[in-house]
């Protein structure tokens, strides 16, 4: 299928305003009489709050008020949560603090400077408790509890088995096993999360926020604030990046709303970088795996046995949805049918986990690919060969995987072949050998694949839980298309969707395709929650596929109306007409027709020229539900279809490691992605390079670290190392397009795959470079000190 506008490199509609510095970010918003909040954060990981003395702070001129967790407890309800009901949190700590950085008190003042002065003057008396930092120790029966009401530090524990892993392993020729450790990182956008709340017209609380995309979650914020949901309007504000960190980041708008209601004036609360690092509520996964994989001698994978402990931090806002993501692609692109997965989700005195590009599936992919690589090495197979032998084949789709999810379509051999066609691995392997022998240099080649699940269904947030409190199944997206009286197009999006992705360009491109109008002519707007139709927003690489479905649905309704108006005016049957290039014309006689502008004039101003029963105007809305989701079985024997729009990627990294400093440097990097039909190749390429660079950060540099006493070690960007332009490799990008049979236009998501596969490819390349020293990357981030120590130990062993 070829399209006029879809699939072409296109400048972004979003960019001109961003290029002149008018992005409209939350910190740019000023409301008359606006106050500013600053937060006192806990310096201790675990303690009872005995008292908070605000006397001196309140004496400071410019300080308006101080609020604490006690005020929250009295005046509002706990935060929204998909976790256990016995693990509750408030926007500020109530009774006890559970991690360094948790909010203890808020100072509201005439300026941010004065609010921070006020914070300095607060006196808190803590009664410290032993910190719980090691998730293994946290599970011991005598360990001090974080949540007394929950009765245990294990938030959730369950073992799933699909097939029979013991039987599969009994027939294996080789079983590899490993202990694998994935450290905490986070989306860490350059803009933090923020909200401005103001008591508005008719007693409606208005919250401007760069988060909380879920317009159908607004009522949960209202519930926290104890106000009727029709008295809360969330106003979407473009965000300066998210990568997960602004996905339903509910505490910031709830806190701003609470403060505004208390003082009766607009209040701005914008995280500073320290707030965000220690308390973003969206730290990424923090897991330790005992993992085994069985193989036959020819490299065929026979089964996977996972025992994972996930250090969730102090709260569990999204339950264990991160592992639902792992289940969506639990076998990767491979054919094996037997999987066992034991999950223990543990609470500790750290910031809670949230979302980060992959939402837990990226960790699973790294584990899977680490095991496949170990199997390949021990069986003497090249990494591309062992994968090729195990791929699900193109004629096997749609393919139901163990656990219940479905892969809609794919061509994994084609993606691998495309990647191999872009790089001469034989030459690199010869060069690697030559450089080692002649120059003593250490070159490594890593090849890895990933599934890229996209277009989530809401069941992923609860289906692992036996008795979910709120087992929602909807995750719709809506669009409203308006043709104004002069024939100009307005597109209204029903969520907060501008996070650095391209909702306006995507929307305008799809609308252009539907009507034959220039994409640049479309004006795109965002509905606030008071006007919004059901919308779920970006996340889980769903937005492009879902909004395209919504826009196409609305377009078809409008096209029908245009055809009927034209048919009435031309005294023809609608079936005799067609819409071509913004004009309704007679089939077979294209010289006879009416432009959209002419028809729009009729629709708005000449009611007596409309067909009988038709009303004036040209506006249609459409709500597009998830294209393919099924409910999970109550007993957990089948999790249902919940993430079926399945992309795929293959990355090949070539790097050199300096064995004496442990520093890797990239020599080549090939990234091939299949995201179905591509709307804008250059934008998808940007997601690939950006995502892969984040994946490299996760692998080599980034760590949100806590010491054993629970003190947070990553308070600045000097500690939390984001790759700069000097660390990022030069990527060579290839695309394969296997359209989805389930979505409009065959679009699949493509926002996360780069980060989901880069850690596996880079880990493999480091292993390959230093294999002679026994290097195996088993813990991320893999820091230079680890590499140097391994090399030195390897050299010592050689004597």
């Amino acid at each position, binding site marked *: 299928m070829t399209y006029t506008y879809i699939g072409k490199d296109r400048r972004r509609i979003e*960019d001109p305003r961003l*290029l002149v*510095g008018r992005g409209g970010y939350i910190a740019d918003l000023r409301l008359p009489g606006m106050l500013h909040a600053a937060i006192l954060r806990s310096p201790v990981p675990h303690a009872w709050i005995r008292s908070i003395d605000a006397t001196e702070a309140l004496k400071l001129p410019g300080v308006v008020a101080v609020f604490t967790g006690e005020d929250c407890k009295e005046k509002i309800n706990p935060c929204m949560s998909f976790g256990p009901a016995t693990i509750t949190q408030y926007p500020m700590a109530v009774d006890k603090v559970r991690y360094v950085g948790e909010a203890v008190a808020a100072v509201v003042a005439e300026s941010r400077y004065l609010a921070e002065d006020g914070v300095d003057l607060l006196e808190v008396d803590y009664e410290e408790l032993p910190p719980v930092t090691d998730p293994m120790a946290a599970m011991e029966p005598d360990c001090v509890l974080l949540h007394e009401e929950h009765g245990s530090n294990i938030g959730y524990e369950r073992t799933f088995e699909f097939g029979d892993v013991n039987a599969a392993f009994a027939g294996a020729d080789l079983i590899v096993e490993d202990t694998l450790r994935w450290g905490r990182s986070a989306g860490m956008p*350059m803009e933090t999360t923020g909200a401005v709340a103001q008591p508005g017209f008719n007693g409606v609380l208005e919250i401007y926020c760069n988060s909380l995309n879920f317009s159908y979650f607004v009522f949960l914020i209202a519930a926290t604030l104890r106000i009727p949901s029709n008295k809360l309007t969330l106003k979407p504000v473009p965000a300066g990046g998210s990568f997960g960190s602004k996905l339903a980041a509910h505490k910031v708008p709830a806190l701003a709303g609470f403060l505004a209601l208390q003082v009766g004036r607009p209040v701005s609360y914008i995280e500073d970088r320290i707030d965000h690092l220690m308390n973003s509520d969206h730290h990424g996964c923090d897991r330790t795996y005992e993992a085994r994989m069985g193989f036959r001698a020819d490299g065929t994978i026979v089964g996977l046995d996972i025992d994972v402990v996930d250090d969730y931090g102090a709260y569990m806002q999204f339950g264990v949805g991160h592992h639902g993501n792992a289940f969506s692609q639990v076998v990767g692109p491979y054919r094996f049918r037997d999987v066992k997965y034991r999950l223990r989700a543990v609470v500790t005195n750290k910031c809670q986990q949230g979302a980060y590009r992959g939402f837990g599936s990226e960790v699973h992919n790294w584990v899977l690919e680490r095991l496949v690589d170990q199997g390949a090495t021990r069986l003497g197979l090249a990494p591309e060969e062992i994968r090729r032998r195990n791929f699900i084949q193109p004629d096997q789709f749609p393919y139901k995987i163990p656990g219940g999810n479905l892969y809609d379509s794919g061509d994994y051999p084609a993606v691998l072949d495309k990647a191999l066609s872009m790089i001469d691995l034989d030459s690199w392997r010869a060069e690697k050998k030559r450089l080692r022998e002649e120059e003593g240099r250490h070159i490594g080649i890593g090849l890895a694949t990933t599934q890229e699940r996209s277009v989530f269904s809401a069941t992923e947030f609860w289906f692992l839980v036996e008795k979910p409190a709120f087992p929602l199944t909807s995750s719709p997206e809506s669009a409203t298309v308006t043709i104004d009286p002069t024939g100009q197009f307005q597109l209204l999006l029903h969520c907060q969707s501008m996070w650095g992705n391209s909702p306006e360009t995507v929307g305008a491109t799809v609308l252009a395709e539907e009507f034959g109008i220039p994409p640049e002519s479309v004006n795109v707007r965002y509905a606030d929650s008071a006007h919004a139709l059901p919308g779920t927003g970006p996340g889980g690489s769903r937005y492009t596929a879902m909004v395209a479905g919504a826009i196409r649905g609305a377009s078809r309704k409008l096209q029908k109306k245009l055809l009927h108006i034209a048919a009435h005016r031309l005294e023809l049957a609608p079936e005799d007409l067609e819409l071509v290039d913004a004009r309704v014309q007679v089939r077979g006689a294209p010289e006879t027709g009416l432009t959209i502008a002419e028809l729009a004039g009729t629709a708005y101003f000449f009611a007596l020229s409309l067909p009988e029963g038709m009303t004036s105007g040209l506006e249609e809305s459409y709500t597009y539900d998830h294209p393919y989701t099924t409910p999970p079985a109550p007993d957990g024997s089948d999790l249902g279809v919940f993430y079926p729009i399945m992309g795929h990627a293959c990355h090949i990294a070539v790097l050199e490691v300096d064995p004496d400093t442990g520093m890797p440097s990239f020599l080549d990097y090939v990234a091939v992605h299949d995201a179905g039909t591509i709307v804008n190749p250059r934008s998808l390429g940007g997601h690939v390079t*950006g995502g892969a660079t984040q994946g490299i950060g996760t692998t080599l540099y980034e760590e949100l670290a806590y010491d054993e006493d629970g003190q947070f070690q990553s308070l600045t960007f000097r500690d939390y190392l984001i790759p700069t*332009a000097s660390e990022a490799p030069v990527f060579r990008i290839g695309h394969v397009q296997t359209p989805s049979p389930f979505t409009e236009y065959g679009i699949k998501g493509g926002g996360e795959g780069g980060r989901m596969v880069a850690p596996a490819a880079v880990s493999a390349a480091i292993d390959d470079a230093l294999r002679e020293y026994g290097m195996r990357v088993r813990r991320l981030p893999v820091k230079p000190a680890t590499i140097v120590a391994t090399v030195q130990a390897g050299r010592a062993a050689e004597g």
Partner: protein
Amino acid sequence: MTTSTAAKYGTARRAVTVRVNGRHVTREVSTRTTLADFLRDELDLVSVHVGCEHGECGCCTVLFDGLSVRSCLMLAVQADGHAVETVESLSANPAELHPIQEAFAEEQGLQCGFCTPAMLLRTKEIIDAGREMTDAEVRHEISGILCRCTGYQNIVNAVQSAGAKLRGPTAGGRD
């Protein structure tokens, strides 16, 4: 309030005159006001984005007497008598972009736009220096500004494209 308290809580004020984007402005500011907050809050130049407030992310980069500085690490009073340029000095009109902004649009050297004004100003500084650079040199030159969206590749392309346009059609430079 006593003098010492005034100093501690920043109520001491001083007049500053700064040439901002070619225009002299005089304001009385608190002595503790950062240059970034002065530009944003006093002059409504909200293109100056504050990303970390500790001098690491570079998103608040402005040109100070033609050289890039992190405006979160300077005080407004330090700018007294100096010239500051923000991205509005290139173009503040989305319909009439400067060639550097145009190159970033064409190459998609941005996604969320938060680091973009800083990257554009740094690009201007690099190009104004007049020397053609390899891609690796460009990467080194922009590595003081963090971008979390792009992986930098399209930014490097945009810097090179803008440089080629503004310097004219001379050969070489790319690696």
